[in-house]
């Protein structure tokens, strides 16, 4: 007989053992009962799932199974189809073909509500929380109770208790926008637990967490598993998968390349090969180079973010020509604001930003563009390109003020089209014509457009924010090659990324930022990045300045 965890600390209506019947909590939530007792039979089986989107086959006859009480990782690179598959399981999408069995019974989910009622809860990568409402309100959202009038205080207590139970502490009355990212994730998990989820799907849960928060999350997951929950863990990070999961299924381009491998019996190399299909070079071909003069010098810069809170608290760094300087840090620690103050999109409260000796702090964006600063933005669709304008229009965004394209007040469109075609050839942008609107381009092509535009200006300084996010491995290699080529050509490059691997293989030097302050600077000789260095960087990313680390270890 399964030991059932009472939900919400409220008594569960009990049925005599034997024939499984519908069981309900006091609040009236109906639970799907498990007819099978054996721990080996799968709790979830997905057979032959096919899911299509316009222009792409996201899931190509995928099979997947989940055993009770296990942590099963779904591994694959961006675009492999992992999130799609889980969205099908969670009821957000309907598959074109295939079937899903929960505890041996076929189910057909037409909406997320059905999946939740079957005990499947999904914690999305981008949290589905209403920022202006409280924790409790978010947890209650979509439920049939309370019927009409809402007495929040009563439910606040219930939520607090549930949090205690699972070690997920959060203030029920806080509004979501007031919470940290880690706390918001806890709310998401609580939301699913409140609804009686037995199966949790976590979509890239560590993408926004600092290393210590990740440990906390892993502990929570193991605690839940101990109470009989089953967890599916979507990730593209090999180390995490090996560390956390019992079994792993690998997807590549919509197909399963390995199903349900025991992680204890496989290696990172095997998984990498299954993920990508060929030997993955973890090291790039970077030539040693003597960096030149200082191009960018930032001294003691203070700036606020959009909410008026301090985002940069005394940041200093410098970049020389012909070198790539990496900036590591968990998302949301000031990287975006730093890129914005350098490129003139944000004002500083104090400090200096010098480009080749000229102070450009608080200059407008067009001045920094004129001075030769190029900026590859984080968000290529919402910031970097104009979706309904043609590729040509997008490609001249930085150069339209100067000849040959800009002549006085006139715009020479034939020169612009010629320019666009040249870039199309040179950067291998796959598009029917350069008049095609940008919104029809794939992520990789769009990034090529942006890179073509930014590099063709022969910049003295490049600020690259997450340039490879969301790209497949081929495109990533292309971006890396281009960055290295710019380094050869003498540009100064500031590379901001969340992928430590990428930073370490490309950078000559590495800074780490935490809560708007620099934790330290490291020389990163790509040939020998040791495990120690990884740990040191990890510690810096969670707030320990380099001097403290060095004092503690006494090492150089």
């Amino acid at each position, binding site marked *: 007989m399964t030991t059932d965890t009472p939900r919400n600390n409220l008594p569960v209506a009990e049925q005599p053992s034997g024939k499984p019947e519908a069981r309900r909590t006091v609040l009236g939530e109906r639970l799907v009962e498990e007819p099978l007792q054996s721990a080996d039979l799968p709790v979830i089986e997905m057979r032959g799932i096919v899911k299509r989107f316009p222009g792409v086959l996201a899931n190509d006859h995928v099979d997947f199974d989940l055993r009770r009480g296990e942590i099963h990782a779904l591994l694959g690179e961006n675009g492999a189809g992992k999130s799609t598959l889980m969205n099908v399981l969670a009821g*957000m*999408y309907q598959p074109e073909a295939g079937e899903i069995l929960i505890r041996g019974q076929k189910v057909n989910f037409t*909406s*997320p*509500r059905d999946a*939740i009622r079957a005990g499947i809860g*999904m914690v*999305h990568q981008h*949290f*589905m*929380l*209403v*920022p*202006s*409402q409280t924790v409790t*309100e*978010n947890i*209650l*959202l*979509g*439920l049939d109770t*309370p*019927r*009409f*009038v*809402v007495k929040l205080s009563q439910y606040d207590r219930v939520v607090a208790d549930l949090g205690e139970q699972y070690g997920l502490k959060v203030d029920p009355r806080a509004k979501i926008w007031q919470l940290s990212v880690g706390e918001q994730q806890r709310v998401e998990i609580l*939301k699913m637990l409140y609804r009686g989820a037995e199966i949790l799907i976590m979509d890239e849960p560590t993408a926004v967490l600092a290393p210590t928060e990740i440990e906390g999350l892993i502990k929570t997951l193991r605690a839940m598993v101990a109470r009989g929950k089953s967890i599916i863990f979507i990730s593209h990070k090999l180390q995490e998968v090996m560390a956390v999961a019992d079994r792993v299924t690998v997807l590549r381009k919509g197909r399963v390349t390995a199903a349900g491998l025991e992680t204890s019996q496989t290696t990172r190399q095997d998984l990498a090969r299954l993920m990508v299909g060929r030997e993955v070079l973890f090291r790039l071909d970077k030539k040693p180079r003597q960096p030149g003069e200082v191009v960018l010098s930032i001294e003691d810069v203070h700036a606020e973010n959009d*909410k008026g809170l301090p985002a940069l608290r005394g940041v200093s760094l410098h970049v020389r020509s012909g070198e790539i300087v990496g900036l590591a840090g968990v998302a949301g620690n000031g990287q975006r604001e730093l890129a914005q103050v350098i490129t003139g999109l944000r004002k500083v409260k104090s400090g200096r930003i010098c480009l080749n000796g000229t102070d450009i702090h608080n200059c407008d964006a067009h001045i920094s563009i004129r001075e030769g600063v190029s900026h590859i933005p984080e968000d290529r*669709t*919402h910031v970097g390109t104009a979706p309904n304008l043609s590729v040509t229009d997008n490609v001249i965004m930085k150069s339209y003020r100067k000849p040959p394209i800009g002549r006085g007040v006139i715009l020479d469109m034939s020169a612009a089209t010629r320019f666009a075609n040249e870039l199309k050839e040179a950067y291998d942008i796959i598009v029917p014509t350069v008049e095609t609107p940008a919104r029809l381009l794939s992520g990789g092509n769009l990034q090529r457009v942006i890179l073509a535009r930014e590099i063709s200006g022969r910049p003295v300084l490049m600020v690259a924010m997450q340039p490879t996010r969301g790209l497949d491995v081929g495109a990533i290699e292309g971006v890396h090659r281009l960055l290295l080529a710019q380094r050869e050509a003498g540009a100064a490059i500031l590379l901001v990324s969340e992928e430590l691997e990428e930073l370490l293989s490309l950078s000559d030097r590495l800074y780490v930022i935490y809560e708007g302050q620099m934790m330290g600077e490291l020389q990163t000789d790509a040939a020998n990045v040791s495990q120690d260095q990884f740990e040191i960087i990890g510690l810096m990313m969670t707030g320990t300045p380099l001097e403290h680390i060095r004092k503690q270890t006494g090492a150089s």
Partner: protein
Amino acid sequence: MDFTIILQAGVASGTVLLFATLGEILTERSGVLNLGVEGMMLIGAMFAFKVTNASGNPWLGVLAAILMAGLLSQIHAFITVTLQADQVVSGLSLTFLGTGISLVLGEGLSKAGTVALLPAFSFPLLSQIPILGPIFFTEQSIMVYLGYVLIPLAWFYINRTRPGMHLRAVGEYPAAADALGINVFRLRYFYVFVGGALAGLAGATISLAISPGWFSELTTAGMGWIAVGLVIFAQWDPLRAAFGSYAFGALRRLILDIQGPTVFVGAIGGFKFLEMRNPFYYNPYWGFFLQMLPYAFTIIVLVIGSREAMRKRLGAPAALGNPYIRGARGL
């Protein structure tokens, strides 16, 4: 110039704005911008008058107004929610459509004479309250009293009930609501209907209570637009909406009355402290500038509302104006 009368009339004509504003608040809270309010008000006013004229029963007129305006709003809902077209242009086009249809089907109505109007009365005990009684509870149309009831009802619904919670979620972050099984599309259709129906009710209030009759486009004189502006001033809150609506109503009455008396007299308890010739009486053409006042005030009210939103970093429901597309990356 009796201020009591001005405020009393102000509450009456303010009720028209109140209905339209409350309706638009509900619609915008669900994330849909409906600029067709003016057209829906005209449809409401016209149908109310026409049906009452034909049937003799003003309540049938009110019902017709609500239904037809609500029906018109569903076109807007279809275009913006299902077809995901731009909400601004769709709303504008519905104003044209509503105006046009009301002119076509209302042809000849202005010659119809008088029709049965909605009852007006004084509340027995409440009208005796000093100062407030004569203003709020004496000889007011039944619609005005309905307005008093709607204000706290709307506030309570939005802030203290489960459907209200869902409404707010759908307007702030529809993806979250969708992921939890709330039907974003259905709710938006519903609240667009409610907004349209209330706009129709506002129109009926004009033609059957406050300014009885049908005067083509002049019937509403841009009040539908003022209502949309008031929503911003009200910061999407029913209580502030009430304040704004009644204040505007009073302003309109003041503009009328101020051109009347030959002399301004200010008195408290019989003691005259002010006596001067009324410039507006002696220069009747200044009346045109008075006509500008409600519209200029709307702009001022907008400025106040926008500055407040900027200051408090609050403002519109976050998803206002954006169609909800399931599976779209980003918000």
